[in-house]
């Protein structure tokens, strides 16, 4: 793991309870943490987190390697190791992401992406290991992203990350333009489908581009009709446009089809969209429809 902003203490504590033989921390600043089996490697200030992690993993003694980010806490770990690349379930706020995090050295995996470091590998199997991500934003991200982008002006991944930084800063027009560029130059996979979903969210809920949003969501559903998030967003768009009947039916699709998702598939999951949210919205639609019928009901004489 990398110590970027001194958020490693809880992570080390949580990992060590699972009997891990060696914990390697690469650090850019002095660090005062003591623990059995801890190896601290001082790193020079860097513009490439992936390269630093690759150096650290080269120095690892053990056959099996797991990667954690600072600020993460392991809340549950259960695995039976075979020669596979394993995905952990990373829980942040209401969302579960699946990321490749545990692998055998023989796979010879490398980290990629100098700013948002991640393993350059596809997951073979998602396992019952849940990691809570309580990390704060890295203040260097913007600066590193600019450098990365200047060095690789045509790299499509840069557009992706710039788009989501724009979205987090509520620069919606910038987000739409950057993510559209990214989508135009990408093959369809989970990441591009989710990017399209966020584009549809901005178009449908914030920009009054209902038809474009619906077109994008149809493409998302064509990729995976079991994503309650996609059905719920369609419901939200019709709700916003006061088509409460249709919204109800779309939320219902989200409830039923969402319940059919496999527990360990590779797609992310926004937990509330699988029960709580569609039920609340359906109740709201129902109440609006009942009240509107009352208003138009002719009074009996």
């Amino acid at each position, binding site marked *: 793991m990398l110590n970027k902003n001194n958020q490693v203490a809880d992570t080390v504590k949580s990992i060590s309870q699972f009997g891990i033989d060696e914990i390697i921390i690469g650090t850019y600043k002095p660090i005062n943490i003591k623990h059995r089996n801890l190896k601290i490697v001082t790193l020079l200030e860097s513009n490439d987190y992936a390269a630093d992690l690759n150096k650290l993993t080269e120095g690892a003694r053990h056959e099996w390697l797991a990667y954690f980010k600072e600020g993460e806490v392991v809340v549950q770990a259960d695995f039976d190791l075979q020669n596979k690349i394993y995905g952990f379930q990373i829980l942040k706020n209401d969302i579960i992401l699946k990321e490749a995090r545990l692998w055998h050295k023989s796979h010879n995996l490398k980290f990629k992406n100098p700013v948002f470091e991640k393993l350059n590998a596809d997951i073979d199997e998602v396992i019952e290991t849940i990691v809570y991500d309580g990390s704060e934003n890295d203040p260097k991200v913007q600066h590193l992203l600019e450098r990365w982008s200047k060095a690789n002006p045509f790299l499509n991944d840069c557009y992706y990350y710039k788009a989501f930084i724009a979205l987090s800063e509520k620069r919606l027009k910038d987000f739409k333009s950057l993510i559209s560029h990214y989508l135009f130059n990408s093959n369809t996979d989970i990441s591009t489908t989710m990017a399209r979903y966020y584009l549809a969210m901005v178009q449908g809920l914030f920009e009054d581009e209902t038809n474009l949003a619906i077109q994008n969501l149809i493409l998302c559903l*064509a990729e995976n009709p079991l994503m309650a998030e996609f059905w719920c967003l369609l419901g939200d768009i019709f709700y916003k446009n006061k088509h409460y009947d249709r919204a109800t039916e779309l939320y*219902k699709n989200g409830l039923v089809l969402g319940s059919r998702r496999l527990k360990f598939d590779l797609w992310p999951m926004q937990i509330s969209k699988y029960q709580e949210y569609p039920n609340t919205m359906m109740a709201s639609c129902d109440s609006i429809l009942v009240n509107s019928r009352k208003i138009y009901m002719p009074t009996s004489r």
Partner: protein
Amino acid sequence: MDITKVIYKIVENPKSLANYVLLRDFYTNCGQEDLAKSIDVLIEVRRVSNNSSDAQQEQSGS
């Protein structure tokens, strides 16, 4: 059959069972049996809820 057209039909008229049958048949023809089965579950849920709302309407009409 283009799947986006089938999903478009569902978005246009999400109550119509016929559109879900089209979607199920699409997945069956592609050999995606798990998805076909999931759509079948949705069809069944919708059939039950359509029947119960028909019954309610009949009751309130009688």
